[in-house]
């Protein structure tokens, strides 16, 4: 008997004392077992690359309505009227991705890459950082750069767009320098493991850095400080063919997030339809009877086989069922199609989407050369651009078993030989041609640059040489959104559930609380 109680007592008492002494160790179970708190440097990369390509597509739904890439099937929606959705995060996916999807991840990756002397990964990180500021400032104007990514703060002051532009140039220059290094732990295999775009190829990343630099510098076109030679020099160090295009594939294996945002399974585009503006650029209306072979490969016909567009903000009312353009998956419905429906062009589940393309850069070069007065260079680049984009359309259309056929070389030659498209003499090349072909080449995916281009020409500026509108056939809706006071959109308001709710004080300093803030011209498009 005594023995039992003795044991009980010993157990109890030692138990009691034991818990007293080793408490701290016992309680140290706060390492989250569900997820790591730090990972190998290259593991941060893939999600950020994904968003670099994909985030612009989210916002493209709205920007594409300003630029009349497409319009809503519902008449008079806010974005079609150059407005915005109050109290909504629509049009601010980039805001989320630059500050959160990249955000601290990019800081951590770059810090690790630098500490581990992975100069190639650091260069890629700097390109990502530059891309973020570039895209974000182009969409929103003033953004938070200096004070960004600091969870201990709760008021974040905005920086000027000029500062953001210079920061992009600084980052790209640094990236180019880092990508040139071969010392330290530079390792194409390590980078290539998670590099969804160039599989670790430093040379191609360097080209992308120059490409972004060219894009940045060309945006100064309205300013006295514009230097077309610098733009051309940067383009020449960037992509040399479609093989350099910065493309990312969507594998479509984990369900939703790794499928092309524009594809049928994601079902984001069912209420969008092409506009007469893009149709008329392709169907011979604007370019005297020359039907672009890309029209039937990029756009969607109506059930009767004719290619039409819905006038921006007009809705579907004017059409009979057989004349109403189909959606971009060539279906009449405004409902999402069943999963894995066959798509068209870039509107397909597994179709690659670009960050930048060779064609795009050639048009940048053409514009810069044209402005410089070097029309020979401009024409050559312009031709390269058209040819490269026709090849781009073909390349995309076979990636995911899409329905359109390939553009034959005969079709391509016929198109490129039409003088309405490619003038025989360099002197006959017009700004309208360059910008409209660039528009076509960027249609459907290159929203940020397209909108930047159109804002630089204030949507409806005329080419001083010809007196014709630079964007042939672009027409504003008759009445704009009620807050606009008749002015078109020049920026998207910063993300509502970030800035308008939680950072209002800083926003008010830059005038962001004004109801027509979205019509205020950004610094870069001003002279």
């Amino acid at each position, binding site marked *: 008997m005594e023995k039992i109680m003795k044991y009980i007592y010993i157990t109890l*008492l030692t138990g009691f004392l034991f818990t007293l002494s080793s*408490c701290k160790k016992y*309680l140290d179970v706060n390492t989250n077992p569900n997820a790591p708190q730090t990972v190998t440097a290259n593991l941060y990369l893939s999600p950020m690359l994904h968003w670099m390509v994909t985030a612009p597509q989210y916002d493209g739904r709205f920007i594409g309505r300003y630029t009349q890439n497409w319009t809503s099937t519902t008449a008079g929606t806010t974005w079609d009227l150059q407005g915005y959705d109050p109290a909504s995060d629509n049009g601010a996916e980039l805001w989320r991705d630059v500050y*959160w999807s990249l955000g601290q991840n990019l800081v951590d990756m770059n810090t690790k890459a630098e500490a581990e002397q992975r100069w190639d990964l650091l260069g890629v990180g700097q390109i990502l950082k530059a891309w973020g500021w570039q895209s974000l400032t182009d969409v929103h104007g003033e953004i938070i750069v200096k004070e960004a990514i600091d969870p201990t703060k*709760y008021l974040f002051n905005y920086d000027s767009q000029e500062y953001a532009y210079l920061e992009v140039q600084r980052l790209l220059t640094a990236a180019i320098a880092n990508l040139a290094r071969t010392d330290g732990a530079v390792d194409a295999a390590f980078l290539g493991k998670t590099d969804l775009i160039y599989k670790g190829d430093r040379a191609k990343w360097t080209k992308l850095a120059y490409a972004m630099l060219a894009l940045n510098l060309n945006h100064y076109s309205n300013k006295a400080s514009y230097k077309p030679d610098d733009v051309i020099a940067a383009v020449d160090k960037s992509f040399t063919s479609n093989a350099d295009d910065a493309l990312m594939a969507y594998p479509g294996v984990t369900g939703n997030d790794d499928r092309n945002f524009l594809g049928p399974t994601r079902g984001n585009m069912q209420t969008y339809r092409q506009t007469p503006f893009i149709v008329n650029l392709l169907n011979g209306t604007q370019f005297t009877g020359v039907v672009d072979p890309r029209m039937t490969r990029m756009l969607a016909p109506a059930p009767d086989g004719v290619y039409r567009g819905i006038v921006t903000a007009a809705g579907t009312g004017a059409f009979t069922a057989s004349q109403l353009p189909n959606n971009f998956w060539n279906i009449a419905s405004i*409902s999402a199609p069943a*999963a894995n429906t066959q798509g068209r062009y870039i509107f397909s589940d597994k179709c690659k989407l670009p960050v930048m393309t060779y064609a795009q850069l050639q048009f940048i070069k053409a514009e810069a050369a044209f402005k410089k007065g070097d029309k020979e260079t401009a024409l050559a680049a312009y031709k390269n651009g058209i040819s490269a984009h026709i090849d781009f359309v073909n390349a995309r259309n076979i990636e995911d078993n899409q329905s359109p056929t390939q553009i034959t070389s005969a079709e391509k030659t016929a198109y490129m030989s039409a003088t309405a498209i490619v003038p025989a003499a360099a002197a006959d090349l017009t700004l309208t041609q360059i910008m409209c072909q660039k528009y076509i080449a960027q249609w459907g995916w290159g929203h940020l640059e397209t909108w930047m281009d159109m804002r630089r020409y204030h949507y409806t500026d005329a080419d001083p040489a010809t007196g014709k509108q630079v964007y042939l056939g672009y027409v504003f809706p008759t009445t704009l959104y009620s807050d606009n006071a008749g002015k078109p959109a020049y920026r998207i308001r910063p993300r509502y559930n970030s800035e308008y709710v939680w950072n209002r004080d800083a926003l008010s300093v830059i005038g962001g609380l004004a109801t027509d803030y979205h019509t205020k011209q950004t610094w870069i498009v001003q002279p």
Partner: protein
Amino acid sequence: MKKKLLLFFIGTFLLLAHAIAQQITVTGRVTSEDGPIPGVSIRVKGSNVVAQTGAEGSYTIKALRNDVLVFSFVGYTTIERTVGANTTINVALKSDSKGLDEVVITALGNTVKKRELGTSQQTVSGAAIAETQRENFINALQGRVAGVEVTSSSGVPGASSSITIRGVSSISGSNQPLMIVDGLPIDNKTLNTSAFVSDASSNTAFSNRGVDFTNRSADINPEDIESLVVLKGPEAAALYGIDAANGAIVITTKRAKAGAGAVSYSNSFRVEATRTYPEIQKQYGLGGSGVPGSVSTLNNIYQYFGPAYPDGTQFYDNVKDFFQTGFTQKHNLSFEGGSDKVNYRISSAYTDQSGVVPNSDYQRINLTGASQGIVNNWLKTDLSMNYSYAVNDQPLKGSIGPLLGLLAWPQTDDASNYLTAAGTRKLLAFGSAGNAEIDNPYFNVNKNIINSKTSRIISNLGLTITPFRWVNIKTNIGMDSYTNQNLIVRHPESASAFSRGGTIDVANDITRNINLQNLINFNKQKLTKDISFDATLGNSLQNLKSNVDAGYGEGFLDPNFNSLNNVGTKLVRTSISQRRLVSFFGRATFDYKNYLFLTGTIRNDRTSTIPIDRYSFWYPSVQGSFVFTDVPAFKGLKNVFYYGKLRAAYANVGKDARPYAYVPTLENKTTSGGGYGYGFTGPNPGLKPEFAKSYEFGAELGFLNNRLGLDITVYRKETTDQIVNDIRSSYATGFILLNLNGGSTRNQGIELTLRGNPVKTNDFNWDVLANFESARGKVLSLPNALPESYVSDTWLYANVRNGNTPGNSTRSLTGLFYLRNNQGQLLINPTTGVPVRSTTFIEGGYDRQPDFTIGLSNTFTYKNMSLSFLLDIRKGGDVLNATQHFLTTIGLANNTVDRMTPRIIPGVLQDGRENTASPTPNNIAFVPYYQNTFYSTASEELFIEKDINWIRLRDVTFSYKLPQTMLKKQNFVKSASVFVTGTDLFLITNYTGLDPVVNGNTAAVGGSGASGIDYGNFPMPIGLNFGIKIGL
């Protein structure tokens, strides 16, 4: 030191062993006015020797001649007798269920006389809970305890119920009390949908809206509950620590009564019917703005803004036909018996419930065993094991649930004919696109699935060691372990998963909580002639761990085979959550002449969820009780009062964070190529515990020979440094959500309990108990001076959410509400004639907190018959009738039938003059029939119904005990009774929806949750139970 202690104890035991030799055996019988009382506890004072009376009230106990025997039984005055030369001691106990000498259970399982308590607590008997025949005993508590509010998520079998005591104080964390069973905490989790893979993506997330799971307390068989005590404030719960900051519910389960073995069996059969059918208009058919509907003009959902139905249109009463009669059966069987040394109780129960919504059901099996043993003079054991197995099938809820589909379905179509000849989902419109058309309700309940199965074991081993008469040591070791398997299927043809080819979610939650508690109780000792003292020292250790393994699939190969093996795309997720707590605590009570009591407590909690340099914190409480009617100088008061007591208490209680709250982690991303990236929540290395300072004052008064009693409490609690989870900030932080200190809230209120015994004769007795509560919760500030904090899951309908803003109620709603001028008139857009809405979330003066609630229970007994009922009365509190708003936007609500009437919205034009002395009145008229945007864009604000009152007959029971004369002829059945119980029989309310007791989320959601947001929710059904009880 250890060695010395050991010797010291061994020495003590030798002395005890010596004492045993001189014991004598005492026998006797314990009776009351009503006859012998079984189950009376007889204790040798100051020792661990205990006996119990058997069925005939007789007992046997061994004691010494100079021992004092203490006879105690809940509801009776405790009596003490010195053994002396007697070997037979018969005792008559006096009923004293309402006096101050009633023995009650309080924190840490201490039993004290009511007079000693300085805080407010209330007891509900297990019988009263079981009598309501609720499957989830939580639902039986509404109205029975002042200050307790129970909200069931819906009227579907197995729906989760949340419970709050004294209102909502935490902005984002749990406001539910700690559940204690037989001295140790048990898990009352409602599975959070964040464990499901679907919640990883906003495209597929449930966000605790579309589904519901049972709160785990419902695993307890109500028939096993002996008594339930509600410790209301942090003062009462200061000894239970962090998790009791919102109060505690202390449950004692049944133990056997010594004596001849007894068998009892009871059953209950219930039929259930839905209380009301939602009403929809039958005048106007499909279409928009007076134009008949066709596929292209309908915007993804049926709209009823078309022309009037032609005469002779055939209608189907889909709504009425959909509901079925629910049926429930319950069987309880228990055995008990034992001697004064060892006793046992084994009970088993089976519940099988099918609800009024087709394919909703809940089944539960309980097996409980409890045994107490007196091993020897100084060691007593108490072991209980409770096994339960529950299976629950619920329909989907809210926006994807069947109710909205049922209402929206065209009345010109027979909804029950929901499949095509090929056995696939029949679509009425919109061509082939299955996600464009709301689910047919029959399709929804037959093809979509929420199934959960839980098997659980709760074990509790208690050892009480009494080394000396003045001290005992009590150790409890408990394990609460369960496996909860869940399956959610959104059928490939359903609207909610059409574009994904169907989704399947499985989540297996393996939870294992281990609790250890040591108490050293020092029995009452006289310090001086007038002052005595007793105390408790203790420590506890908790290791709470849950591991949820979840799988997800989409793209069903065979549309009707529900398995992860049948899908194209698969994803997995593991969620492990572990929290450890180590605590030390002490309590000391000083007793001055048995009428003045002062108790102080101190507790130290060390938690794993706070950064290690701040993980340990201390907090005190102090409480006093003054029985002024027992002060000799105030003897004259006895003419007025039967008794009178004043009490006061103060506590400062700490609270920790949720696990892993301060370090951000990387998530495995499902975007192209995979990889890692941070989750939404950012870091907060400075996280510290929050504290609630709370005080309460009260009085307990008895009048008219205790036929009338009053208990009144006022309290005030202020939480500072409150940890607000998932609060937002600018994305420039690099994160979307943060867990920050810095919220503060204040709760105050008054509670009144009035009891009376208006009639008391030999045959007839009438007892009344009224519980009144009025509570207020106010947000004083938010972290970082942010303007609003909300729990995102509550943003479940349009633009209304449970937003908290400084200066307003903790249960307010924010939304994109109408703007008003300085006189409160609506601002009207001067060009369109419609009201102007705010573009930011604003506080609109809405408050879901009721002004007051009353629970009124009456019990009548006449000879062998008894009738009892509980009325639940509420005044005030707002409810968002989102279902009605939904019906209005699609032209189905009855309030849209006057659509041909031209109207001008009363208000003033927003023309710059709106805030002047003479604003321009609105004069823009329109006819909604031609302009259905009047309805389709109506503000949700118009459907927040203000000041909702109700009177609800929660339950009513009539029972009849068969008289002994009838049973005399046989020896088999010793007692028998029959009963009829009605649940939720009537509801009188000014609420226009189905049921104002709703929660748009589940009980898993923190803060004020979505209680009072009614969107596609099924109401509590009317139930009628019949059953018998037999004792063998």
